């Protein structure tokens, strides 16, 4: 024997490892086994990815409110690869739900839960519930507005449950408000209790699958069984690979939301659950008044009970999947119901408040800029200054780095230079900028504010805010109002406007100020719809 084989034999004698792997890989499976049976493996794989990425996220995460948010911002904005890691965990959760449901759909369609596989099915239903529990508890952990308000609603629902409601509320630490106690409980559940529970149930589930064997289709008894390895193992691998590629691409391409820090006093926030809970959320809306409990507690409980009892309700002999029209019908109805409820929930969701469009995982220093400086960003982009100039770090370009050079120049110098570049810098190849004096002033104000430290933060100022600031400057709002401590005090300061007024009020106020605030001497403004949207959006993201 070669040394490799000898080593394997030695290891197997001591641990039985090789025999175990061999038994596992060369398990007999029915001749009909094929691509439709890959989903269980994919779900298991996704669970492992969640455990892996979750543990890595925990290495840079502080599990207390406030700190949680800051540490997540740190993960996303500063830790190398942090954005990808959170992307994998976030989208992995959604994908896990999708795959688990696909897995159950397949088992249901094929009637694979029938005698003697009832226990396997029930363990599976509990695994589904655990998966949802991860979604529910994980939702709070970023501690942004979305997390906070979503959890306020869920814990209130739990507290409504008959008999056990108060106990549930106490268990979740949410008798008063969602706060540090609830946060600790959710975190504890999410990382300490749920994972071992899931692992145990998976072991039981897989053990039962092995004990009873993969469910055969009618006709299999006449055909020779196959081995799991390598053909079915190949199919599982391909399915897992496809799932992984989708997950990876989503994690890289799709932005994972991180909103403003949770604010219990924010009255404008519209809480919505994660997409896979939207149907429950919508069901709740169908029942009002004393019937509310039906939608919140009774129906979901009945649904879970029905799922558990499926193998005992459908006790007929195993039939071909194409003959199981009733099961297919039930499934179609469920799919239509789910889609309808989810679609209704999406359609009835009001347009999100403007603040949600800001990605708080990026630097947000631009929020502190005055409207003049902000409008300067607009002209800076409009004139394509960045095609010749670097700002902060980056490849050297023809013109000097504006984040470093402007510190030494005055605004007056810059404005002269904008009008006739070569007059101030002999030999300069820069073309003159065709803007009015006031506009050049604005541009200079922005450049004076620029330094290597804030360059990146200012570059991330979103287009709608810059556009709004341009309109603000053009209409000289600053001669009566104040934003970020710059401007006049004739009218009310505009920071904190979103606390005082609705967007609709502000829009109507622009059109006819005196109708809403009698005695005001603010002139009416005729904005186009886009202009109106931009200026209102800008005013509503201003910090307090």
């Amino acid at each position: 024997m070669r040394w490799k084989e000898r080593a394997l034999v030695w290891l197997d004698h001591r641990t039985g490892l090789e025999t175990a792997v061999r038994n596992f890989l060369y398990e007999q499976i029915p001749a009909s086994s094929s691509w439709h049976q890959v989903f269980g493996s994919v779900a298991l794989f996704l669970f492992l990815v969640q455990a892996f990425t979750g543990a890595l996220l925990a290495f840079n995460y502080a599990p207390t409110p406030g700190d949680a948010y800051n540490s997540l911002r740190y993960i996303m904005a500063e830790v190398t690869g942090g954005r990808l890691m959170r992307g994998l965990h976030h989208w992995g959760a959604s994908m896990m739900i999708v795959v688990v449901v696909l897995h159950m759909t397949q088992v249901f369609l094929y009637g694979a839960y029938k005698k003697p596989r009832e226990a396997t099915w029930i363990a599976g239903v509990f695994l589904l519930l655990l998966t949802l529990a991860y979604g529910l508890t994980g939702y709070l952990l970023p501690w942004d507005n979305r997390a906070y308000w979503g959890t306020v609603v869920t814990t209130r629902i739990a507290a409504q449950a008959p008999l056990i409601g108060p106990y549930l509320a106490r268990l979740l630490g949410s008798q008063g408000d969602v706060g540090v106690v609830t946060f600790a409980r959710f975190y504890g559940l999410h990382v300490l209790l749920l994972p071992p529970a899931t692992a145990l149930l998976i072991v039981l589930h897989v053990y039962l699958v092995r004990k009873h064997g993969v469910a055969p289709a009618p006709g299999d008894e006449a055909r020779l069984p196959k081995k799991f390895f390598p053909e079915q193992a190949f199919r599982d691998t391909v399915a897992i690979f496809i799932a992984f590629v989708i997950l990876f691409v989503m994690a890289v391409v799709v932005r994972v939301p991180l909103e403003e820090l949770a604010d219990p006093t924010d009255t404008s926030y519209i809480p919505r659950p994660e997409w896979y809970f939207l149907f429950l959320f919508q069901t709740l809306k169908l029942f009002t008044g004393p019937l509310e409990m039906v939608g919140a507690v009774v129906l979901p409980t009945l649904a879970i009970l029905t799922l558990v009892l499926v193998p005992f309700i459908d006790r007929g002999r195993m039939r071909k999947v194409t003959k199981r029209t009733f099961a297919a019908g039930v499934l179609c109805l469920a799919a239509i119901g789910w889609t309808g409820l989810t679609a209704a929930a999406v359609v009835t969701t009001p347009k999100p408040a403007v603040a949600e469009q800001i990605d708080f995982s990026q630097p947000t220093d631009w929020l502190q800029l005055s409207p003049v400086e902000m409008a300067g960003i607009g002209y800076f982009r409009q004139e394509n200054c960045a095609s010749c100039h670097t700002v902060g770090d980056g490849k050297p370009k023809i013109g000097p780095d504006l984040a470093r050079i402007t510190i030494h120049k005055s605004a007056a110098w810059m404005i002269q230079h904008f009008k006739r570049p070569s007059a101030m810098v002999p030999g300069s190849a820069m073309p003159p900028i065709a803007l009015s004096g006031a506009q050049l002033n604005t541009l200079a104000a922005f450049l004076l504010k620029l330094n290597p430290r804030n360059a990146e933060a200012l570059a991330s100022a979103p287009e709608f805010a810059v556009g709004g600031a341009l309109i603000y400057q053009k209409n000289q709002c600053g001669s009566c109002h104040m934003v970020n401590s710059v401007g006049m005090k004739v009218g009310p300061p505009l920071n904190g406007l979103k606390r005082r007024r609705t967007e609709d009020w502000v829009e109507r106020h622009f059109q006819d100020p005196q109708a809403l605030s009698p005695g005001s001497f603010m002139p009416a403004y005729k904005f186009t719809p886009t202009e109106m949207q931009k200026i209102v959006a800008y005013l509503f993201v201003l910090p307090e």
Partner: protein
Amino acid sequence: MQQVAEAAPQTTRRRFYLTFIYGLWGAISAALAAPAFIYLFLPPKMRRESDWVEAGDVSKLQLKNPVEMVFRKNAVDGWKVSSEQQTAWVVKLSDQQIVAFGPQCTHLGCAYHWEERSSEFLCPCHSSVFSVDGKVVSGPAPRPLDRYDTKIENGKLLLGALRESRSLKS
């Protein structure tokens, strides 16, 4: 011959499966391991700290007579930015040169102090001794005392980043 001809499609098929199984799992492992490695081992993007902090008045410093100065500095620790109290031993080495040493011994990080009698810095942990200009006189310390970047404006000492001193052995 016949047997071989029958076995051939079976073996190619098996080889095809095996290649894919190993290849795809290799790709998945790499795509998970590489980001994990980057995440754990590459340093995070640095937030630049506030550049210069005022430590105190240096116009009354006496030559070669170290003074411990206490100042507040924004310290960035992971996701936490906190205003921390820090200290520096400030020495006027000549009329032109003022240096500020970091307050920790370069051996194992204990706080050292100035011994008036012997005119040396002494670390109480393992008896490292440094001269007034920070050089190692004796003891286990591997390199001279670390120094802050310094500049003086209007008689006030401004401190920048704390630089690790280069080992003398290298």
